[in-house]
């Protein structure tokens, strides 16, 4: 009885220690990402005028309007870290339509809140009545994202370029890599092992080191600054990866399954498409995922090989440069950059689990 208790206590201790360690490690990974996400939702004011930062961004902002003498108005914002009203926007406000328009834009750009000119006029009227007027505005959570794409011109187009490049990369590298992987899995030929190893060698060249030849060759091919050229470069890297993945997948599918299909009425090609291909889908999905993630995230080659048609990561990278970098906007760009890869991974998670999760196909 006591023995049992002691054993249970020991077990609990062990598990607790493990969980603490694991969650510690998870925190190290998750917190920076979480803060990045949190920043991407913060307004300019929250980012630069409040310290320490709250764990979660605000969803609404409190404003107060009162008189500043001479019949003029003054707008304050509730500063969470100071726990006080702080001046926000121009000191002296009057009913001049230009100034009201400016204020409305200011509230939008620096507070991420929507407050129309008529609403400002109404607020002024109410301030005249009571001496002051306090109001809360819902903060727009996608404002920074919109702003990022507006501010960094070509960002939206670069997303399309990126998607196009990723699509081409998937198509080229999965089809060629898959075919080569099938050959490596099914046929015996001279120098097979050397060849299989040597496909990895192309990965060892640092892109910066071979930048000039790449630019020259792509230029001669008329593919410089084009998604096709970029996807060719990416495919070189990705094909070798896909060969190794698909070769192991095809090796795991017994050849006799294809032979049976041939005996029972299909051609050799038919057997591949009716039997081997459906069974290899998890592996091909994994290849597609890796190709997509690699192509979507790659920066160095893209910086070298594009000029007027950058991919999205290049735009995000360029937004980091320069003195006028705005942290909350960059955070929005970064999250926008990370999101598709995450969504894509979730989308084909099922197949990856089938392959490596012990779920037998």
């Amino acid at each position: 009885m006591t023995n049992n208790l002691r054993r249970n206590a020991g077990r609990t201790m062990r598990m607790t220690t493990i969980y603490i360690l694991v969650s510690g490690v998870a925190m190290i990974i998750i917190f920076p990402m979480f803060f990045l996400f949190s920043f991407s939702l913060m307004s300019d004011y929250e980012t630069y005028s409040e310290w320490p930062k709250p764990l979660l961004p605000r969803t609404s902002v409190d404003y107060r309007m009162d008189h500043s003498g001479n019949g003029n108005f003054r707008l304050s914002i509730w500063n969470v870290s100071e726990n006080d009203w702080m001046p926000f926007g121009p000191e002296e406000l009057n009913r001049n339509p230009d100034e009201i328009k400016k204020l409305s834009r200011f509230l939008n750009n620096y507070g991420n809140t929507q407050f129309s000119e008529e609403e400002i006029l109404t607020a002024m009227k109410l301030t005249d009545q009571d001496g002051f007027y306090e109001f809360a505005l819902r903060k727009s959570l996608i404002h920074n994202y919109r702003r990022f794409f507006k501010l960094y011109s070509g960002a939206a187009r670069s997303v399309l370029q990126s998607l196009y490049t990723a699509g081409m990369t998937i198509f080229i590298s999965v089809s060629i890599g898959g075919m080569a992987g099938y050959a490596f899995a099914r046929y015996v030929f001279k120098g097979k092992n050397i060849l299989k190893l040597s496909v990895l060698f192309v990965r060892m060249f640092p892109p910066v080191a071979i930048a000039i030849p790449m630019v020259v060759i792509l230029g001669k091919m008329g593919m410089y600054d084009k998604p096709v050229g970029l996807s060719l470069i990416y495919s070189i890297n990705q094909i070798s990866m896909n060969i190794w993945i698909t070769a192991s997948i095809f090796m795991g599918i017994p050849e006799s399954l294809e032979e049976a299909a041939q005996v029972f009425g299909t051609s050799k090609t038919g057997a591949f498409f009716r039997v081997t291909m459906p069974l290899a889908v998890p592996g091909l999905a994994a290849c597609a995922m890796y190709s997509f993630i690699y192509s979507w995230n790659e920066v160095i080659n893209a910086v070298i090989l594009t000029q007027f048609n950058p991919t999205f990561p290049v735009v995000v990278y360029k937004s980091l440069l320069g003195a006028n970098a705005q942290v909350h906007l960059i955070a929005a760009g970064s999250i926008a950059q990370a999101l598709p890869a995450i969504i894509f991974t979730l989308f084909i998670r099922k197949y990856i689990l089938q392959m490596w999760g012990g779920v037998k196909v």
Partner: protein
Amino acid sequence: MTSENNKERSMPVLTLTNLAKRYNRKVWGVRKMDLEVEDKEFVVFLGPSGCGKTTCMRMIAGLEVTTRGSIILHGKDITDLPPRNRDISMVFQNYAIWPHMTVYENIAFALKLQKKSRSEIDRTVKEVAAMVKIDQLLSRIPGQMSGGQQQRVALARALAVKPKLFLMDEPLSNLDAKLRVVMRTELKAIHQRTGATSIFVTHDQSEAMSMADRIVIMKDGEIVQVGTPDDVYFRSADMFVAGFIGTPPTNFFPVEMKTAGEKVELSHPRFAILISGSDADRLKNNGQNSLILGVRPEEIKVVPEKDSLLSVEVMVVEPQGSFQIVAVEIEGEIVKIVVGSAGKIQPGERLHLSFVEERLHFFNAETTKRI
């Protein structure tokens, strides 16, 4: 009219002529195969691993390109046809049922490709599924099934196409020993019911003996003997067959022959035996003096001392239930004897032995061929 019918019936379904397979211009898989398979016959290719039996079957199926020779099925040369145009079906050693299809889809696969009507497919699938007793499993995925059930699916799939020739490549070797014996009986029953001409590859001689109409024994890519189970057992063509067929296999004794009038005397360092009648004539005609005497384990009898040929000390006894295998040592060779289970024999005991004279086998010492 009747004579013509008879003639047609006696025409072979499958003819292999001078069939050979060489890999990479180096290794011979099959050196030379000449064989005729009759309608509704159950032929077993038997041999040790690497003897070319599976290669030969794969050539018949079209999964292996032939190096030389021809394959004729129902009067049509199919040597170079792709597998799907050959009118054959096959059961694979590792079942090879498609894991991404249900049992029903597996069985219906070939029928769908033949563009059969849906009702016809349904009828055929249910019919063959009932034949191999898997009609309860039709909606299952192969991954959830036992090896025996998977083998039944493979069998049903092969039966569904109603082929001209039914090939089975060691279909029972992945099953456990008990199930193998059950399936053996069922396979034979199915063959008797469908009457499909079948070729069955195995390395298990007891499987071959129990199922075959004719056994084709192969060694090093060539046919050693073709015959009924009785042929290969009682009239083994050479020492390889005699040593391969039967558990335990034939015991061999090198002997010297001496003519003694009508009879011949075969002498071994431990015994001498007189042979008379047709056996003696054959031996005399053969002319060679050194030969090998082959005696099957059950043809060595334990007899009273006065009738015995030789006496030996028992080395090991292996009880088998209905009989026991006694191993003794004669001139450095282990000789196995099958004795009835009545009367327990102990190691170290002395046994007095004699041979059943009319069932002795004689082999040429050099060519190992039967005399």
